């Protein structure tokens, strides 16, 4: 067994285990940490596929920024463990399992398709995933989507700031609720 295969299976098992942990662990903080684990495992898979730039950005953005944001919010809100079980939720668990099986098998089925007719193989080394090649494409052919992406990020930032600042709206709706309660 080649080293690549060993690495693939190692990262694959780690990713799936992390995913299971995210979905199944009742404590949100632990879920988040499992998600970080999955992200690292996926970064390994990217490196196997010679996606250097994507792998590094993935670690930096997901594990570094997004997950920190998640953890902050969880701590800020002091979210308790999920304790509610049973009822409709018990049934939903089996529904979800059924959906999981169907969906995964169907998607895997496509994996076995002969996509382009010539049973091509994945390559061990390639230049396309490097920072240089991606940078060349991003700043030449895809410069417009790139700039639009920056606008999107700014918009999201403004929206997030506004949402967390708008105490007024929240207080007003609280007042309204109080009035409604009095009416009843």
């Amino acid at each position, binding site marked *: 067994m080649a080293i*690549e295969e060993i690495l*693939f299976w190692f990262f*694959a098992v780690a*990713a*799936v285990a992390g*995913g299971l942990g*995210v*979905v199944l662990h009742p404590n*949100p903080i632990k*879920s*988040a940490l499992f*998600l970080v684990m*999955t992200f690292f495992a*996926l970064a390994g*898979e990217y490196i*196997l*596929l010679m*996606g250097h730039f*994507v792998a590094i*950005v*993935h670690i930096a*953005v997901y594990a570094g920024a*997004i997950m920190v*944001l*998640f953890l902050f*919010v969880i701590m800020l*809100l002091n*979210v308790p463990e*999920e304790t*509610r079980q049973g009822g409709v*939720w018990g049934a939903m668990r089996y*529904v*979800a399992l059924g*959906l*999981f099986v169907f969906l*995964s098998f169907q*998607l*895997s089925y*496509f*994996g076995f398709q002969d996509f*382009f007719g010539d049973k091509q*193989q*994945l*390559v*061990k*080394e*390639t230049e*396309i*995933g490097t920072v240089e090649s*991606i940078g060349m*494409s991003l700043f030449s052919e895809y410069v417009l989507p790139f700039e639009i*992406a920056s606008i*999107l990020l700014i918009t*999201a930032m403004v*929206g*997030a*700031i506004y*949402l*967390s600042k708008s105490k007024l709206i*929240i207080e007003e709706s609280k007042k309204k609720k109080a009035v409604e309660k009095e009416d009843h």
Partner: protein
Amino acid sequence: MGTLSIPLHYFLILAAVLFGLGVIGVITRRNAIVIFMSIELMLNAVNLTFVAFSNYLNNVEGHIFVFMVMVVAAAEVAVGLAIIVAIFRLRETVHVDDIRLLKW
């Protein structure tokens, strides 16, 4: 340039399994934050297929797409978490089964 001894469909099946796990999380978990995490999981599964196909087709566009997905994910998380914080301040809960106004 040698070929990789792992076939393409290994990566695709791994992505399918991770995507399915994400679906389970979205459907069964009641904590809005965990639901968000599950969505991230699904996005990552898709990213993996993009990168795998990019290698397979020797084409840079898959990487560009992954980059864009990350941008969208970052934006989505920023806004989404802000909404969750706002909802928490209003209703003192992040449980989606407490927030069921989408009913007649």
